[in-house]
Each structure stands twice: as C-alpha cells, then as structure tokens.
C-alpha cells in the first residue's frame, strides 16, 4: 500500500504532455520543501488534482493542490478548457452579429452581457439610446443579476451541504426564465438587446409578470435569510473560510461582490454610472470580513437592492416611447418598415451586411457591473463594421486569479465552498 503512495502523488496525465509537465513543474518549484518520497514516511504530502470534470468546480475548472495533510500549501489553477476564442470570433463578425456570442460568455446572466456589448458599441459609435429602451435594459439587467445570484445561492449552499436549497432557488429562477421568455422570446440565451435599443417592447403580460415577481420575491428572500443567517452549520462552514483583506483583494484584482466583501465599495453603477443608474437610489452592500460569509451577505443584499431598483425603474419609466433609435445608419429598422417599405428593406440589409461603423482609429472602453463584477469591452475600431480588436474584461477571470491566493493555507475540504463563494463561470473566464 505504501509503495503505491508515491505513485499516487507522482502519477501524471499523459495527454498534452508538455502542458502537464509545465503545470506540475510550476507547482513544485516555488517551495523547496515539497518532497514527495522517502522523507515523508506517512505520505501526508501529496498533489491532489481536482477537476476539470468535478461537479463542485462549477464547470471545467481544474485545481491542482499541493497538500500537507489537509492543508493546501499551494495551488495552481488550470483554465482554458472552455476556451472558444471569442475575441478572435469578434474580429470576424459585425458588432451586431457578435452580440449573441456574448450570451455564451457568462451564461448565467446573458442579458447583462448583451447590454455590456451594446453599450460599449454605442459609446464608440456615438449612438443615443431612447429612454424607454434604457429602462427596459436596466430592469432586465437587474433581473439577470437576481437570476445569477440565485444560481450562486443554490449551488454554494449545495456545496456547503444543503441540497434542498437548490430546488427552492431554482423555483424562483424558473419564474425569471418565464419572464425572459415573455420579454425576449428565449428563456436562457436571450439576445434581446440591440445596438441602439432593444428588440421589442415589454408586452403587458411581461410587465405584469415582472411586477408580480418583484412583489413576491422579497418574501422568499426573507425566508432564506431566516433559514441561513443563524444556521449553525451554514455559518460555521462559511465564517472565516477563504478570508482575504482589502489590500490583498485589490492587489490580486478581485472583482464584484468578492471585492466588496473585503470592504471596497467598488461598483461600476456608482463608480462610473452608466445608463440611468445615477438617478436611482440604491446602496452598495459591503462587508469588511472578506470571507465567504461576507460574500454571502453582499450578494443577498444585492438581490434586495436589485428589487428596489426595478421598482424605481417602473415608477420613472416613460409609459410609451420608441425602444430603438430611429436612424437607419445606427440601428436596425423596425420589422414594419422592413416588410412594407423599400428603404426599410435596404437598411435592414445594410445593417446585417455592414452594420455600425465606428470612426477609424477610435478606441474606447465601457464597463458595466455584471452580477459577477466588472464586465468591460475594450474596442479598437478600424472604421469598418468589424472591430479591429475587442478585448473582454471578464470578472470571473479576475476572481479566479484571486482564488490561487485565497486557497493558500485553507483546508482541502473548504475548496469547494470557496469556489462556490467566489462564483466563477468558466464561460466568462475562458472566453
């Protein structure tokens, strides 16, 4: 039995040999003390490989850990299993054509991604969006935030050991899917936003559904708070786990709720208000502990704030109005025009063929506060309908980088809870 111990820790995968060798080497050469053989008769030191196909890593994340007993002495992340080359694809598509691809980045909150891209293109191409469209976008973005946080809540608590919670949060998520189905015609990958506005207005049914959800959701949230906030098992499992200070948090570039849980109130909605967030009255929930419990509180409070933002949007939203800019050079014409007028058809064709052309040599950056943190698009234009370079700043990438530092010195059993608490989405991180 003991003979195989060294084999267990040293057995390396054979596939993509160079890659594996480099990865294991990187794990080995930082601390000279790591030795895997004779000097360690009880074999307490070992290398543990977790993922890429592990249900608790929330996708295809691979974590290599150097263990000393149960403590992680060092860890390396291997990402890229979901790398699709989204940025390369963007360079070969028009801006509008690329928009559906953003659904597949952070697939837990597709609406935010669509809006982020559209806002970035609108900024560089100088397009004004009608007010009603902006409100529709804001409402749906906040719904997407709730939807994403609901999935985080379900899976994170499932990682901490409570299985039934997942069903409860998914019951609420199902309502959101229904809403998106009614609003956009798709349940999951909505692709509802357009450059210059949105595809279609809210139907009365959709509006009623959202209002109903907003009315009922705070009750659910209160119920969850009641179950979790003073739940001994949950608190013990999360309190002090994966803790990180604010200085370290900034140094390793955490984003979103994970950064706010360390005490930095960095939220793009207030840092650099986009859309109409400067007219909204909301709080940015922060905590100072920086551990998993703090992240839990931040996200739970954010959901409550989102509900309040949606209510305010409904109050301030103009009852009627255009939902897409009425300029054939900047946005798609409405279907009425396309079907019944020659010009409409030509414009529709031109938009599909060439699309929006920002000025040559322009470079701009626009970010929104996606559920997971700052989601930004850096666009360089060469004057054609395709971006010359489109760089995605994805929040999960930043958070995963932090995970390497956060996991240092944690217990191996806490890995899944910490990953659950950081809420990475590999589609977002791997691009």
């Amino acid at each position, binding site marked *: 039995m003991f003979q195989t111990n060294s084999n267990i820790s040293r057995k390396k995968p054979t*596939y*993509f*040999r*160079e*890659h594996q*060798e*480099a*990865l294991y080497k*990187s794990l080995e050469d930082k601390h000279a003390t790591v030795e895997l053989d004779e000097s360690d008769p009880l074999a307490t030191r070992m290398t543990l490989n977790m993922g890429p196909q592990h249900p608790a890593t929330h996708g295809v994340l691979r974590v290599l850990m150097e263990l000393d007993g149960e403590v992680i002495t060092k860890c390396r992340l291997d*990402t*890229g299993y979901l*790398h699709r*080359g989204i*940025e*390369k*694809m963007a360079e*070969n598509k028009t801006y509008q054509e690329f928009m559906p691809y953003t659904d597949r980045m952070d697939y837990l909150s597709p609406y935010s991604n669509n809006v982020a891209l559209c806002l970035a293109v609108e*900024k*560089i191409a100088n397009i004004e969006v009608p007010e009603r469209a902006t409100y529709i976008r804001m409402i749906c973005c906040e719904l997407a935030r709730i939807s994403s946080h609901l999935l985080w809540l379900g899976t994170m608590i499932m990682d901490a050991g409570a299985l039934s919670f997942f069903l409860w949060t998914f019951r609420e998520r199902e309502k959101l899917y229904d809403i998106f189905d009614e609003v956009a015609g798709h349940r999951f990958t909505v692709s509802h936003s357009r450059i210059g506005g949105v595809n279609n207005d809210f139907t009365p049914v959709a509006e009623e559904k959202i209002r109903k959800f907003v009315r009922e959701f705070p009750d659910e949230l209160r119920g969850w708070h009641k179950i979790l906030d003073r739940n001994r098992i949950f608190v013990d499992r999360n309190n002090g786990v994966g803790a990180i200070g604010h200085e370290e948090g*900034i*140094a*390793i*570039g955490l984003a979103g709720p994970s950064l706010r849980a360390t005490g*930095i109130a*960095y939220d793009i909605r207030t*840092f*650099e208000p986009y859309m109409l967030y400067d007219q909204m009255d909301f709080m940015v929930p922060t905590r100072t502990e920086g551990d998993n419990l703090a992240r839990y509180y931040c996200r739970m409070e954010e959901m409550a704030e989102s509900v309040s933002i949606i209510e305010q949007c409904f109050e301030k939203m103009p009852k009627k109005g255009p939902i897409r800019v009425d300029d054939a050079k900047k946005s798609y014409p409405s279907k009425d025009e396309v079907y019944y007028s020659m010009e409409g058809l030509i414009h529709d064709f031109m938009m599909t063929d060439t699309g929006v052309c920002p000025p040559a040599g*322009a*470079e*701009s*950056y626009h970010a929104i506060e996606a559920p997971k943190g*700052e989601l*930004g698009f*850096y666009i*360089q234009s060469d004057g054609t309908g395709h971006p*010359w*370079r489109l*760089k995605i*700043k994805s929040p999960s*990438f*930043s958070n*995963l*980088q932090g995970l390497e*530092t956060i996991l240092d010195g944690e217990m191996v059993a806490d890995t899944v809870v910490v990953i659950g608490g950081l809420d990475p989405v590999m589609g977002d991180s*791997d*691009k």
Partner: protein
Amino acid sequence: MNTEIRDNLLHGIREFMGDDLLEMNVDYVHPLVRIKRDRLLDACRFLKNTLHFIYLNEIIGTDRFTSDDRFEVIYHLISLRNRQRLFLKVRVEEENPVLPSVTDIWKSANWNEREVFDMFGIRFDGHPDLRRIFLPEDFKYYPLRKEFPLLGVPGSLEMPTSTPDHD
C-alpha cells in the same frame, strides 16, 4: 467623471514623463497615454505610488499588423481614490517582443500577462510563472495574431484518437 481631477492627473503624468510621453488623448472620456517602452516600469511605479493607481484591472494586447512596433500592450489602471481610469500603452516590435513584467508592482498582472503571452507571444521579463493560460503548452501558435486563421491550424492540437469504449 470629474474632469478637473483627470486633467490634474494628466498634467502630473506629462510632467513626470517629459519627452517620453508619445501620445495622450481623452476622446472617449478615459485617458489613453502612450509612453516609450524603456520607461514602462518607471511610469508604472510613479502611477501606483504617486497617483494612486493601485488597481490593475486588465492588460490588453493588440496586434496592429504594421511592420514597425507591431504589438501594443495596454495597461488598464484604476485609481479608486480619484475615481479615474487610465489606459497606459506601450508598443513592442515584432522580432523580439519582450516587455518587463509588472507583477512586482501589481500582483494581479500575473494572469493578465500570461494571457497576453498566450494570445500574442509577447514575453514578460521577470514574470514568476510565464506559461500559457488558455491553450496547452504544446500549442505552437499565437491565436490572436492577425495572421492566425480563423478556422485554426489543422492538426495543431492533439485530439483523442479513441473513444472510451474502444481503447
């Protein structure tokens, strides 16, 4: 966005960099500053320690596809105190694309530099662990360079030759 603070910052940068400041514009709200490559570390330290850009958000690589100074690396910095973003650019030539690493200044540069290396093949001197981040080490190309075909290079990645059922 407070333009007065921004102008003060830009003034500070202009004074510090002198002739090494090659380009500066604020066309789209956020300032873009291009400097000479040799002064990169110098400028980064100045931006972090004096102007309080303590948060490195991302590092962007671009392929300009020109014969001189082909690549451009853009450092996206945030000053939380002044509520400012700054984009700091340097250019790298094609033959020997090497830049000094800024991981000592901002720890979060680690993965971002690896990403730029992975996508464009720009190496960072002094990086603690410069490996490819998304693609496997066995891959010999840099996919975001303009000459890399959209459909990829056939045979460049080892694919499974058998299904789990037949070994």
